[in-house]
Protein backbone atom coordinates (compact mmCIF):
# COMPACT_ATOMS: atom_id res chain seq x y z
CA UNK A 1 0.00 0.00 0.00
CA UNK A 2 1.36 3.34 -0.96
CA UNK A 3 1.00 6.32 1.27
CA UNK A 4 -0.36 9.41 -0.24
CA UNK A 5 2.02 12.31 -0.42
CA UNK A 6 1.28 15.11 2.01
CA UNK A 7 0.54 18.46 0.47
CA UNK A 8 3.58 20.71 0.13
CA UNK A 9 4.22 22.96 3.10
CA UNK A 10 3.96 26.64 2.39
CA UNK A 11 6.89 28.45 3.84
CA UNK A 12 7.33 32.16 3.94
CA UNK A 13 10.69 33.40 2.75
CA UNK A 14 11.85 36.50 4.54
CA UNK A 15 10.67 39.49 2.64
CA UNK A 16 8.08 37.57 0.69
CA UNK A 17 4.78 39.27 0.20
CA UNK A 18 1.74 37.33 1.19
CA UNK A 19 -1.26 37.64 -0.98
CA UNK A 20 -4.57 36.71 0.58
CA UNK A 21 -6.18 33.70 -1.06
CA UNK A 22 -9.03 35.84 -2.15
CA UNK A 23 -8.41 39.45 -2.71
CA UNK A 24 -11.10 41.16 -0.72
CA UNK A 25 -13.74 42.76 -2.78
CA UNK A 26 -14.00 46.46 -2.30
CA UNK A 27 -16.35 47.03 0.57
CA UNK A 28 -18.45 49.56 -1.24
CA UNK A 29 -18.51 51.38 -4.45
CA UNK A 30 -18.48 54.99 -3.64
CA UNK A 31 -21.63 56.55 -4.84
CA UNK A 32 -22.29 60.12 -5.68
CA UNK A 33 -25.02 60.27 -3.08
CA UNK A 34 -24.11 58.32 0.00
CA UNK A 35 -27.26 58.78 1.95
CA UNK A 36 -28.16 55.10 1.95
CA UNK A 37 -25.75 52.46 3.20
CA UNK A 38 -24.10 50.68 0.34
CA UNK A 39 -25.60 47.37 -0.65
CA UNK A 40 -22.38 45.43 -0.86
CA UNK A 41 -21.05 46.46 2.50
CA UNK A 42 -20.35 43.85 5.15
CA UNK A 43 -23.44 41.75 5.54
CA UNK A 44 -24.37 42.95 8.99
CA UNK A 45 -24.37 46.59 8.06
CA UNK A 46 -28.06 46.68 7.30
CA UNK A 47 -29.15 44.66 10.26
CA UNK A 48 -29.64 45.35 13.89
CA UNK A 49 -28.67 48.96 14.22
CA UNK A 50 -31.49 51.11 15.42
CA UNK A 51 -31.33 54.59 14.10
CA UNK A 52 -30.54 56.80 17.04
CA UNK A 53 -30.71 60.45 17.55
CA UNK A 54 -27.24 61.76 18.18
CA UNK A 55 -26.87 62.65 21.84
CA UNK A 56 -25.28 65.94 22.80
CA UNK A 57 -21.63 65.23 23.42
CA UNK A 58 -19.13 66.54 25.97
CA UNK A 59 -15.46 65.82 25.54
CA UNK A 60 -14.19 63.96 28.58
CA UNK A 61 -10.81 62.54 27.70
CA UNK A 62 -8.24 63.33 25.13
CA UNK A 63 -5.52 60.89 24.16
CA UNK A 64 -2.53 62.72 22.71
CA UNK A 65 0.31 60.94 20.93
CA UNK A 66 0.11 58.05 23.39
CA UNK A 67 2.70 55.29 23.04
CA UNK A 68 2.98 52.28 25.33
CA UNK A 69 5.77 49.71 25.27
CA UNK A 70 6.25 46.49 27.21
CA UNK A 71 10.01 46.15 27.64
CA UNK A 72 11.15 46.24 24.01
CA UNK A 73 7.78 45.56 22.39
CA UNK A 74 5.84 48.58 21.27
CA UNK A 75 2.15 47.91 21.98
CA UNK A 76 0.61 51.28 21.19
CA UNK A 77 2.21 53.74 18.78
CA UNK A 78 1.43 57.41 18.97
CA UNK A 79 -2.35 57.23 19.18
CA UNK A 80 -4.51 60.33 19.45
CA UNK A 81 -8.24 60.11 20.13
CA UNK A 82 -11.05 62.09 21.70
CA UNK A 83 -13.40 60.35 24.16
CA UNK A 84 -16.76 62.01 24.51
CA UNK A 85 -19.70 61.59 26.79
CA UNK A 86 -22.88 60.97 24.87
CA UNK A 87 -21.35 58.49 22.51
CA UNK A 88 -19.98 55.00 22.53
CA UNK A 89 -16.47 54.59 21.20
CA UNK A 90 -15.53 51.10 20.04
CA UNK A 91 -11.92 50.00 19.65
CA UNK A 92 -11.63 47.25 17.08
CA UNK A 93 -8.73 45.40 15.54
CA UNK A 94 -7.12 41.97 15.39
CA UNK A 95 -5.69 40.29 18.50
CA UNK A 96 -2.55 41.90 19.85
CA UNK A 97 -3.15 45.20 18.10
CA UNK A 98 -2.97 47.19 21.32
CA UNK A 99 -6.66 47.94 21.89
CA UNK A 100 -6.69 46.55 25.42
CA UNK A 101 -3.40 48.26 26.26
CA UNK A 102 -4.82 51.56 25.06
CA UNK A 103 -7.91 50.98 27.17
CA UNK A 104 -5.88 50.08 30.24
CA UNK A 105 -3.69 53.13 29.93
CA UNK A 106 -6.78 55.34 30.22
CA UNK A 107 -7.08 54.54 33.93
CA UNK A 108 -3.39 53.79 34.44
CA UNK A 109 -3.88 50.05 34.90
CA UNK A 110 -0.85 49.60 32.65
CA UNK A 111 1.22 50.77 35.61
CA UNK A 112 0.57 47.41 37.27
CA UNK A 113 2.72 45.80 34.59
CA UNK A 114 6.26 46.52 35.68
CA UNK A 115 7.80 46.50 32.23
CA UNK A 116 5.31 48.95 30.73
CA UNK A 117 6.61 52.38 29.73
CA UNK A 118 4.39 55.16 28.55
CA UNK A 119 4.87 58.35 26.60
CA UNK A 120 2.45 60.94 25.39
CA UNK A 121 -0.41 62.42 27.31
CA UNK A 122 -3.92 61.49 28.36
CA UNK A 123 -6.14 64.19 29.80
CA UNK A 124 -9.34 63.88 31.78
CA UNK A 125 -11.40 67.06 31.67
CA UNK A 126 -8.29 68.89 30.58
CA UNK A 127 -6.00 67.62 33.34
CA UNK A 128 -3.15 65.23 32.65
CA UNK A 129 -4.04 61.90 34.31
CA UNK A 130 -0.36 61.33 35.15
CA UNK A 131 -0.75 64.06 37.76
CA UNK A 132 -3.84 62.53 39.37
CA UNK A 133 -3.86 60.14 42.30
CA UNK A 134 -4.37 56.67 40.70
CA UNK A 135 -7.13 55.77 43.16
CA UNK A 136 -9.00 59.02 42.34
CA UNK A 137 -8.49 58.55 38.63
CA UNK A 138 -9.77 54.98 38.74
CA UNK A 139 -12.93 56.02 40.52
CA UNK A 140 -13.57 58.54 37.74
CA UNK A 141 -12.55 56.14 34.94
CA UNK A 142 -13.83 52.70 35.95
CA UNK A 143 -13.47 49.46 34.05
CA UNK A 144 -15.36 46.25 33.35
CA UNK A 145 -13.39 43.19 32.34
CA UNK A 146 -13.75 40.38 29.84
CA UNK A 147 -14.45 37.75 32.49
CA UNK A 148 -17.28 38.53 34.88
CA UNK A 149 -15.47 38.96 38.18
CA UNK A 150 -17.75 39.79 41.08
CA UNK A 151 -15.97 39.71 44.40
CA UNK A 152 -16.56 36.72 46.69
CA UNK A 153 -19.16 38.47 48.82
CA UNK A 154 -22.87 39.19 48.65
CA UNK A 155 -24.46 41.16 45.84
CA UNK A 156 -25.04 44.03 48.24
CA UNK A 157 -21.46 44.02 49.50
CA UNK A 158 -20.07 44.02 45.96
CA UNK A 159 -21.61 47.46 45.42
CA UNK A 160 -21.08 48.66 48.99
CA UNK A 161 -17.37 47.88 48.64
CA UNK A 162 -17.14 50.59 46.00
CA UNK A 163 -19.19 53.11 47.96
CA UNK A 164 -17.17 52.79 51.13
CA UNK A 165 -13.83 54.40 51.57
CA UNK A 166 -11.01 51.90 50.99
CA UNK A 167 -11.29 49.02 53.48
CA UNK A 168 -13.68 50.72 55.90
CA UNK A 169 -16.75 48.81 57.03
CA UNK A 170 -18.72 51.98 57.61
CA UNK A 171 -21.16 53.40 56.68
CA UNK A 172 -23.45 50.55 57.55
CA UNK A 173 -25.96 48.80 55.34
CA UNK A 174 -29.04 50.85 56.05
CA UNK A 175 -27.49 54.11 54.95
CA UNK A 176 -25.98 52.56 51.82
CA UNK A 177 -29.09 50.74 50.68
CA UNK A 178 -30.53 53.49 48.46
CA UNK A 179 -27.19 53.99 46.69
CA UNK A 180 -26.71 50.26 46.19
CA UNK A 181 -30.19 49.83 44.78
CA UNK A 182 -29.73 52.80 42.51
CA UNK A 183 -26.53 51.34 41.08
CA UNK A 184 -28.21 47.98 40.54
CA UNK A 185 -31.21 49.66 38.89
CA UNK A 186 -28.79 51.59 36.70
CA UNK A 187 -27.39 48.34 35.35
CA UNK A 188 -30.88 46.87 35.00
CA UNK A 189 -30.24 44.19 37.58
CA UNK A 190 -32.31 45.38 40.52
CA UNK A 191 -35.58 43.71 39.52
CA UNK A 192 -33.89 40.31 39.31
CA UNK A 193 -31.94 40.46 42.57
CA UNK A 194 -33.82 42.83 44.88
CA UNK A 195 -35.15 39.98 47.03
CA UNK A 196 -31.82 38.30 47.55
CA UNK A 197 -29.25 41.03 47.86
CA UNK A 198 -27.50 38.93 50.48
CA UNK A 199 -26.88 35.98 48.19
CA UNK A 200 -23.30 35.37 47.09
CA UNK A 201 -22.62 37.26 43.88
CA UNK A 202 -20.77 34.29 42.39
CA UNK A 203 -24.02 32.29 42.31
CA UNK A 204 -25.52 34.64 39.72
CA UNK A 205 -25.56 33.66 36.06
CA UNK A 206 -22.75 34.90 33.82
CA UNK A 207 -24.83 37.69 32.31
CA UNK A 208 -26.09 38.79 35.71
CA UNK A 209 -22.54 38.72 37.06
CA UNK A 210 -21.39 40.97 34.24
CA UNK A 211 -24.24 43.40 34.85
CA UNK A 212 -23.29 43.39 38.52
CA UNK A 213 -19.76 44.31 37.47
CA UNK A 214 -21.18 47.17 35.40
CA UNK A 215 -23.32 48.25 38.35
CA UNK A 216 -20.21 48.15 40.49
CA UNK A 217 -18.31 50.27 38.00
CA UNK A 218 -21.19 52.76 37.87
CA UNK A 219 -21.51 52.94 41.64
CA UNK A 220 -18.27 54.88 41.80
CA UNK A 221 -19.95 57.63 39.80
CA UNK A 222 -17.47 57.60 36.94
CA UNK A 223 -17.14 60.04 34.08
CA UNK A 224 -15.76 57.40 31.75
CA UNK A 225 -16.65 53.70 31.63
CA UNK A 226 -14.14 51.33 30.03
CA UNK A 227 -15.33 47.92 28.87
CA UNK A 228 -12.85 45.27 27.79
CA UNK A 229 -14.77 42.78 25.63
CA UNK A 230 -17.55 42.64 28.21
CA UNK A 231 -19.70 40.18 26.27
CA UNK A 232 -17.14 37.71 24.99
CA UNK A 233 -17.87 35.22 27.77
CA UNK A 234 -21.64 35.58 27.55
CA UNK A 235 -24.51 34.02 25.64
CA UNK A 236 -26.37 36.02 22.95
CA UNK A 237 -29.32 36.80 25.22
CA UNK A 238 -27.14 38.35 27.94
CA UNK A 239 -25.10 40.09 25.27
CA UNK A 240 -28.22 41.78 23.97
CA UNK A 241 -29.19 42.99 27.45
CA UNK A 242 -25.73 44.40 28.06
CA UNK A 243 -25.55 46.06 24.64
CA UNK A 244 -28.85 47.82 25.26
CA UNK A 245 -27.53 48.90 28.63
CA UNK A 246 -24.34 50.32 27.12
CA UNK A 247 -26.29 52.34 24.56
CA UNK A 248 -28.44 53.74 27.36
CA UNK A 249 -25.44 54.59 29.52
CA UNK A 250 -23.71 56.77 26.95
CA UNK A 251 -25.99 59.65 27.95
CA UNK A 252 -24.40 59.84 31.40
CA UNK A 253 -20.87 58.57 30.93
CA UNK A 254 -18.38 58.39 28.12
CA UNK A 255 -18.22 54.72 27.10
CA UNK A 256 -15.19 53.08 25.52
CA UNK A 257 -15.58 49.44 24.54
CA UNK A 258 -12.98 47.05 23.20
CA UNK A 259 -14.56 44.37 21.08
CA UNK A 260 -13.57 41.59 18.74
CA UNK A 261 -17.07 41.45 17.47
CA UNK A 262 -17.55 43.72 14.47
CA UNK A 263 -21.31 43.26 14.51
CA UNK A 264 -21.32 44.39 18.10
CA UNK A 265 -19.25 47.45 17.32
CA UNK A 266 -21.63 48.22 14.50
CA UNK A 267 -24.68 47.77 16.67
CA UNK A 268 -23.70 49.88 19.63
CA UNK A 269 -20.89 52.28 18.75
CA UNK A 270 -21.21 55.83 17.55
CA UNK A 271 -17.53 56.12 16.75
CA UNK A 272 -15.10 53.37 15.91
CA UNK A 273 -11.33 53.33 16.11
CA UNK A 274 -9.58 50.64 14.10
CA UNK A 275 -6.17 49.66 15.40
CA UNK A 276 -3.57 47.49 13.76
CA UNK A 277 -0.11 46.62 15.09
CA UNK A 278 -0.39 49.31 17.74
CA UNK A 279 -1.26 52.09 15.36
CA UNK A 280 -4.54 53.85 15.02
CA UNK A 281 -5.33 53.21 11.37
CA UNK A 282 -8.67 54.88 11.19
CA UNK A 283 -11.06 56.73 13.44
CA UNK A 284 -14.49 57.78 12.35
CA UNK A 285 -18.20 57.51 12.81
CA UNK A 286 -19.52 53.96 12.74
CA UNK A 287 -21.42 54.44 9.50
CA UNK A 288 -18.42 55.94 7.77
CA UNK A 289 -15.92 53.40 9.02
CA UNK A 290 -18.00 50.37 8.13
CA UNK A 291 -19.44 51.56 4.85
CA UNK A 292 -16.81 53.94 3.49
CA UNK A 293 -13.48 53.08 5.07
CA UNK A 294 -10.70 55.35 3.90
CA UNK A 295 -7.81 52.99 4.56
CA UNK A 296 -7.32 49.72 2.69
CA UNK A 297 -6.41 47.94 5.95
CA UNK A 298 -9.70 48.98 7.52
CA UNK A 299 -11.56 47.86 4.47
CA UNK A 300 -9.93 44.45 4.58
CA UNK A 301 -10.61 44.07 8.29
CA UNK A 302 -14.24 45.08 8.30
CA UNK A 303 -14.93 42.89 5.30
CA UNK A 304 -13.43 39.94 7.15
CA UNK A 305 -10.30 39.42 5.10
CA UNK A 306 -8.09 39.11 8.19
CA UNK A 307 -8.20 39.28 11.94
Amino acid at each position, binding site marked *: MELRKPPPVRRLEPGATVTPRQAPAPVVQLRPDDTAPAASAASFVNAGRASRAAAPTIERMQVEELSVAYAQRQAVRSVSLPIRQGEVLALIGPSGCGKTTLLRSL*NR*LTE*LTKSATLSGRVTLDGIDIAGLE*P*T*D*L*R*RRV*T*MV*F*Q*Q*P*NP*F*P*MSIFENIA*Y*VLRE*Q*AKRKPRRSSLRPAVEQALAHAGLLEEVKDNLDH*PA*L*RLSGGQQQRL*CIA*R*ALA*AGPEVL*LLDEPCS*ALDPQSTKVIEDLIVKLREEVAVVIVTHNLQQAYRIADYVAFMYLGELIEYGSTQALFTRPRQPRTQEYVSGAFG
Partner: protein
Amino acid sequence: MSATAPGPGRTSPGGSSASWRLTDRAGLALAWFFGLLFCAICGAIVIFLAVKGISDLRPDLIWTNPGAGPTGETGGFLDPLIGTLVVGGIGIGIAGPVGVWTAVWLSEYGRPAPLARVVESTIEMLAGAPSVVLALFGILLFESKVLGFLSATNGGIVFGKSFFAAGAMLSLIALPIVVTTVREGLQAIPNHVREASYALGKTRITTIRRVLLPAARPSLITGNMLAFGHMIGDTAIIVFLLGDTQILQGVGGVPGLNILRGTGSTLTSYIFDNAPTGDLNQPQKAYAAAFVLILIVLALNVLVDVFGRRSREARWS
Protein backbone atom coordinates in the same frame (compact mmCIF):
# COMPACT_ATOMS: atom_id res chain seq x y z
CA MET B 1 -10.42 13.91 10.66
CA SER B 2 -13.25 14.48 13.09
CA ALA B 3 -11.92 15.16 16.55
CA THR B 4 -14.73 13.28 18.24
CA ALA B 5 -14.46 10.08 16.26
CA PRO B 6 -13.46 7.32 18.68
CA GLY B 7 -10.28 5.66 17.54
CA PRO B 8 -9.38 2.06 18.15
CA GLY B 9 -8.02 1.17 21.56
CA ARG B 10 -8.67 3.54 24.43
CA THR B 11 -12.23 4.71 24.02
CA SER B 12 -14.54 5.74 26.80
CA PRO B 13 -13.18 5.63 30.34
CA GLY B 14 -16.05 3.46 31.44
CA GLY B 15 -15.59 0.94 28.65
CA SER B 16 -13.82 -2.37 28.73
CA SER B 17 -10.05 -2.44 28.74
CA ALA B 18 -10.04 -5.70 26.78
CA SER B 19 -8.93 -3.95 23.61
CA TRP B 20 -6.06 -2.11 25.28
CA ARG B 21 -2.44 -2.78 24.67
CA LEU B 22 -0.78 -5.15 27.13
CA THR B 23 1.43 -2.44 28.69
CA ASP B 24 -1.61 -0.23 29.28
CA ARG B 25 -3.48 -3.09 30.90
CA ALA B 26 -0.50 -3.85 33.12
CA GLY B 27 -0.32 -0.17 34.10
CA LEU B 28 -3.98 -0.14 35.00
CA ALA B 29 -3.57 -3.28 37.07
CA LEU B 30 -0.58 -1.76 38.92
CA ALA B 31 -2.53 1.41 39.63
CA TRP B 32 -5.36 -0.62 41.10
CA PHE B 33 -2.95 -2.79 43.07
CA PHE B 34 -1.16 0.12 44.75
CA GLY B 35 -4.35 2.07 45.24
CA LEU B 36 -5.95 -0.81 47.06
CA LEU B 37 -2.73 -1.54 48.95
CA PHE B 38 -2.60 1.99 50.40
CA CYS B 39 -6.27 1.82 51.29
CA ALA B 40 -5.62 -1.50 53.00
CA ILE B 41 -2.63 -0.18 54.99
CA CYS B 42 -4.56 2.89 56.07
CA GLY B 43 -7.60 0.83 56.97
CA ALA B 44 -5.47 -1.67 58.89
CA ILE B 45 -3.96 1.06 61.07
CA VAL B 46 -7.33 2.58 61.85
CA ILE B 47 -8.98 -0.78 62.50
CA PHE B 48 -6.08 -1.97 64.65
CA LEU B 49 -6.19 1.18 66.74
CA ALA B 50 -9.96 1.05 66.91
CA VAL B 51 -10.02 -2.54 68.09
CA LYS B 52 -7.19 -2.04 70.55
CA GLY B 53 -8.29 1.43 71.55
CA ILE B 54 -12.01 0.90 72.00
CA SER B 55 -11.50 -2.20 74.12
CA ASP B 56 -9.16 -0.21 76.38
CA LEU B 57 -10.90 3.13 76.17
CA ARG B 58 -12.96 3.77 79.23
CA PRO B 59 -14.71 7.11 79.57
CA ASP B 60 -12.99 7.76 82.87
CA LEU B 61 -9.64 7.78 81.04
CA ILE B 62 -10.71 10.99 79.38
CA TRP B 63 -11.99 12.59 82.59
CA THR B 64 -9.15 11.73 84.95
CA ASN B 65 -5.60 12.94 85.43
CA PRO B 66 -2.70 10.67 84.92
CA GLY B 67 -0.95 9.80 88.15
CA ALA B 68 1.65 12.32 89.18
CA GLY B 69 5.21 11.55 88.31
CA PRO B 70 6.71 8.72 86.31
CA THR B 71 5.41 6.10 88.74
CA GLY B 72 1.82 7.16 88.17
CA GLU B 73 -0.11 3.94 88.01
CA THR B 74 -3.67 5.17 87.93
CA GLY B 75 -5.55 7.75 85.95
CA GLY B 76 -6.37 8.71 82.40
CA PHE B 77 -5.21 11.32 80.00
CA LEU B 78 -7.24 14.43 80.69
CA ASP B 79 -4.15 16.57 81.14
CA PRO B 80 -2.39 15.30 78.01
CA LEU B 81 -5.59 15.93 76.04
CA ILE B 82 -5.76 19.51 77.32
CA GLY B 83 -2.03 19.83 76.70
CA THR B 84 -2.48 18.75 73.08
CA LEU B 85 -5.11 21.39 72.47
CA VAL B 86 -3.19 24.12 74.30
CA VAL B 87 0.08 23.47 72.55
CA GLY B 88 -1.70 23.28 69.17
CA GLY B 89 -3.53 26.49 69.96
CA ILE B 90 -0.31 28.33 70.77
CA GLY B 91 1.31 27.01 67.63
CA ILE B 92 -1.57 28.09 65.39
CA GLY B 93 -1.80 31.37 67.27
CA ILE B 94 1.74 32.12 66.13
CA ALA B 95 1.96 30.32 62.79
CA GLY B 96 -1.51 31.35 61.57
CA PRO B 97 -1.09 35.13 61.40
CA VAL B 98 2.61 34.99 60.56
CA GLY B 99 2.06 32.37 57.87
CA VAL B 100 -0.87 34.15 56.27
CA TRP B 101 0.95 37.47 56.05
CA THR B 102 4.11 35.78 54.79
CA ALA B 103 2.03 34.13 52.08
CA VAL B 104 0.38 37.44 51.21
CA TRP B 105 3.74 39.15 50.99
CA LEU B 106 5.24 36.38 48.83
CA SER B 107 2.23 36.19 46.52
CA GLU B 108 1.13 39.82 46.25
CA TYR B 109 4.30 41.84 46.76
CA GLY B 110 7.31 39.55 46.34
CA ARG B 111 9.62 42.53 46.73
CA PRO B 112 12.48 42.95 47.33
CA ALA B 113 12.81 39.95 45.06
CA PRO B 114 16.07 38.55 46.53
CA LEU B 115 14.58 38.60 50.03
CA ALA B 116 11.43 36.87 48.79
CA ARG B 117 13.54 34.13 47.23
CA VAL B 118 15.50 33.67 50.45
CA VAL B 119 12.26 33.45 52.44
CA GLU B 120 10.86 30.91 50.00
CA SER B 121 13.84 28.61 50.33
CA THR B 122 13.91 29.11 54.11
CA ILE B 123 10.33 27.91 54.28
CA GLU B 124 11.12 24.92 52.10
CA MET B 125 14.05 24.13 54.37
CA LEU B 126 11.86 24.48 57.43
CA ALA B 127 9.33 22.09 55.91
CA GLY B 128 12.06 19.52 55.47
CA ALA B 129 13.74 19.97 58.86
CA PRO B 130 13.28 17.02 61.26
CA SER B 131 11.40 18.12 64.37
CA VAL B 132 14.12 16.70 66.61
CA VAL B 133 16.52 19.24 65.19
CA LEU B 134 14.04 22.04 65.80
CA ALA B 135 13.55 20.74 69.33
CA LEU B 136 17.28 20.74 70.00
CA PHE B 137 17.54 24.29 68.78
CA GLY B 138 14.54 25.18 70.93
CA ILE B 139 16.27 23.96 74.07
CA LEU B 140 19.21 26.28 73.45
CA LEU B 141 16.90 29.16 72.62
CA PHE B 142 14.54 28.91 75.58
CA GLU B 143 17.23 28.24 78.13
CA SER B 144 18.67 31.67 77.41
CA LYS B 145 18.19 34.23 80.17
CA VAL B 146 16.38 36.66 77.91
CA LEU B 147 13.51 34.22 77.41
CA GLY B 148 13.53 33.09 81.04
CA PHE B 149 10.15 34.69 81.72
CA LEU B 150 8.53 32.05 79.49
CA SER B 151 9.36 29.12 81.77
CA ALA B 152 10.35 28.16 85.28
CA THR B 153 13.58 29.56 86.71
CA ASN B 154 15.42 28.37 89.76
CA GLY B 155 18.34 30.33 91.17
CA GLY B 156 19.15 31.99 87.85
CA ILE B 157 18.92 28.78 85.86
CA VAL B 158 16.28 28.84 83.18
CA PHE B 159 14.56 25.48 82.68
CA GLY B 160 13.36 26.39 79.19
CA LYS B 161 10.51 23.91 79.30
CA SER B 162 6.98 25.23 79.02
CA PHE B 163 3.89 25.35 76.84
CA PHE B 164 5.20 28.63 75.44
CA ALA B 165 8.48 27.04 74.41
CA ALA B 166 6.87 23.95 72.89
CA GLY B 167 4.15 25.95 71.14
CA ALA B 168 6.65 28.38 69.69
CA MET B 169 8.84 25.62 68.25
CA LEU B 170 5.80 23.71 66.99
CA SER B 171 4.73 26.82 65.12
CA LEU B 172 7.83 26.33 62.98
CA ILE B 173 6.36 23.01 61.87
CA ALA B 174 3.04 24.68 61.12
CA LEU B 175 4.46 27.73 59.35
CA PRO B 176 5.51 26.09 56.05
CA ILE B 177 2.14 24.33 55.77
CA VAL B 178 0.20 27.54 56.32
CA VAL B 179 2.41 29.59 53.99
CA THR B 180 2.30 27.05 51.16
CA THR B 181 -1.45 26.45 51.32
CA VAL B 182 -2.41 30.11 51.59
CA ARG B 183 0.01 31.13 48.86
CA GLU B 184 -1.47 28.53 46.51
CA GLY B 185 -4.93 29.79 47.39
CA LEU B 186 -3.95 33.37 46.58
CA GLN B 187 -2.24 32.44 43.35
CA ALA B 188 -5.34 30.57 42.22
CA ILE B 189 -7.25 33.87 42.15
CA PRO B 190 -7.19 35.17 38.59
CA ASN B 191 -5.39 38.44 38.02
CA HIS B 192 -8.43 40.17 36.57
CA VAL B 193 -10.10 39.96 39.97
CA ARG B 194 -7.26 41.99 41.52
CA GLU B 195 -7.37 44.43 38.64
CA ALA B 196 -11.13 44.79 38.99
CA SER B 197 -10.57 46.01 42.52
CA TYR B 198 -7.75 48.37 41.52
CA ALA B 199 -9.91 49.64 38.66
CA LEU B 200 -12.47 50.80 41.22
CA GLY B 201 -9.88 52.98 42.89
CA LYS B 202 -9.01 50.55 45.66
CA THR B 203 -5.48 50.32 46.98
CA ARG B 204 -3.46 47.13 47.08
CA ILE B 205 -3.85 46.64 50.82
CA THR B 206 -7.61 47.17 50.63
CA THR B 207 -7.80 44.65 47.81
CA ILE B 208 -5.88 42.12 49.87
CA ARG B 209 -8.02 42.59 52.97
CA ARG B 210 -11.42 42.82 51.35
CA VAL B 211 -11.14 40.72 48.21
CA LEU B 212 -8.15 38.39 48.16
CA LEU B 213 -8.14 37.08 51.72
CA PRO B 214 -11.91 36.43 51.70
CA ALA B 215 -11.51 34.69 48.37
CA ALA B 216 -8.70 32.58 49.78
CA ARG B 217 -10.57 31.82 53.00
CA PRO B 218 -11.04 28.11 52.19
CA SER B 219 -7.29 27.69 51.79
CA LEU B 220 -6.70 29.71 54.97
CA ILE B 221 -8.90 27.31 56.91
CA THR B 222 -7.44 24.26 55.19
CA GLY B 223 -3.87 25.37 55.83
CA ASN B 224 -4.44 26.07 59.50
CA MET B 225 -6.25 22.80 60.11
CA LEU B 226 -3.64 20.74 58.31
CA ALA B 227 -0.96 22.52 60.31
CA PHE B 228 -2.84 21.86 63.55
CA GLY B 229 -3.02 18.18 62.69
CA HIS B 230 0.71 18.08 62.02
CA MET B 231 1.59 19.88 65.23
CA ILE B 232 -0.45 17.71 67.56
CA GLY B 233 1.15 14.66 65.98
CA ASP B 234 4.69 15.77 66.81
CA THR B 235 6.54 14.07 69.65
CA ALA B 236 10.16 15.22 69.70
CA ILE B 237 9.48 18.88 70.45
CA ILE B 238 6.99 17.92 73.15
CA VAL B 239 9.36 15.55 74.88
CA PHE B 240 12.23 18.06 74.73
CA LEU B 241 10.43 21.30 75.41
CA LEU B 242 7.24 20.56 77.34
CA GLY B 243 8.99 18.91 80.25
CA ASP B 244 7.05 15.68 79.81
CA THR B 245 5.41 15.90 83.21
CA GLN B 246 2.26 13.79 83.15
CA ILE B 247 0.08 16.44 84.72
CA LEU B 248 -0.03 20.15 84.10
CA GLN B 249 2.35 21.86 86.48
CA GLY B 250 1.83 25.57 86.57
CA VAL B 251 4.53 28.13 87.22
CA GLY B 252 3.75 31.42 88.91
CA GLY B 253 0.51 32.67 90.35
CA VAL B 254 -1.34 34.19 87.42
CA PRO B 255 -4.22 31.86 86.46
CA GLY B 256 -4.06 30.76 82.83
CA LEU B 257 -0.58 32.18 82.36
CA ASN B 258 0.79 29.81 84.98
CA ILE B 259 -0.23 26.83 82.85
CA LEU B 260 1.34 28.32 79.73
CA ARG B 261 4.59 28.96 81.62
CA GLY B 262 4.43 25.52 83.17
CA THR B 263 5.10 22.06 81.94
CA GLY B 264 2.83 19.20 80.96
CA SER B 265 2.34 16.54 78.36
CA THR B 266 0.36 15.85 75.23
CA LEU B 267 -1.27 12.73 73.84
CA THR B 268 1.84 11.99 71.79
CA SER B 269 4.20 12.14 74.74
CA TYR B 270 1.64 10.18 76.80
CA ILE B 271 1.65 7.47 74.14
CA PHE B 272 5.44 7.62 74.01
CA ASP B 273 5.70 7.07 77.76
CA ASN B 274 3.00 4.43 78.00
CA ALA B 275 4.08 2.41 74.98
CA PRO B 276 5.63 -0.99 75.69
CA THR B 277 9.02 0.61 75.05
CA GLY B 278 8.31 3.63 77.25
CA ASP B 279 9.04 4.38 80.90
CA LEU B 280 5.52 3.69 82.11
CA ASN B 281 4.72 0.68 79.95
CA GLN B 282 0.95 0.64 80.09
CA PRO B 283 0.09 -0.39 76.54
CA GLN B 284 -3.70 -0.34 76.99
CA LYS B 285 -3.56 3.33 77.89
CA ALA B 286 -1.24 4.05 75.00
CA TYR B 287 -3.68 2.40 72.58
CA ALA B 288 -6.62 4.28 74.01
CA ALA B 289 -4.79 7.59 73.77
CA ALA B 290 -3.59 6.78 70.25
CA PHE B 291 -7.16 6.07 69.24
CA VAL B 292 -8.32 9.44 70.57
CA LEU B 293 -5.44 11.20 68.83
CA ILE B 294 -6.16 9.58 65.50
CA LEU B 295 -9.84 10.44 65.85
CA ILE B 296 -8.91 14.11 66.26
CA VAL B 297 -6.61 14.01 63.24
CA LEU B 298 -9.21 12.17 61.12
CA ALA B 299 -11.87 14.68 62.09
CA LEU B 300 -9.55 17.52 61.04
CA ASN B 301 -8.93 15.85 57.69
CA VAL B 302 -12.64 15.38 57.07
CA LEU B 303 -13.20 19.06 57.83
CA VAL B 304 -10.39 20.02 55.46
CA ASP B 305 -12.06 17.93 52.77
CA VAL B 306 -15.43 19.57 53.37
CA PHE B 307 -13.96 23.07 53.13
CA GLY B 308 -11.92 22.14 50.09
CA ARG B 309 -15.02 20.91 48.32
CA ARG B 310 -17.04 23.98 49.21
CA SER B 311 -14.32 26.24 47.87
CA ARG B 312 -14.63 24.66 44.45
CA GLU B 313 -18.31 25.51 44.19
CA ALA B 314 -18.28 29.10 43.03
CA ARG B 315 -15.20 30.39 41.27
CA TRP B 316 -14.32 32.70 38.44
CA SER B 317 -13.49 31.25 35.07
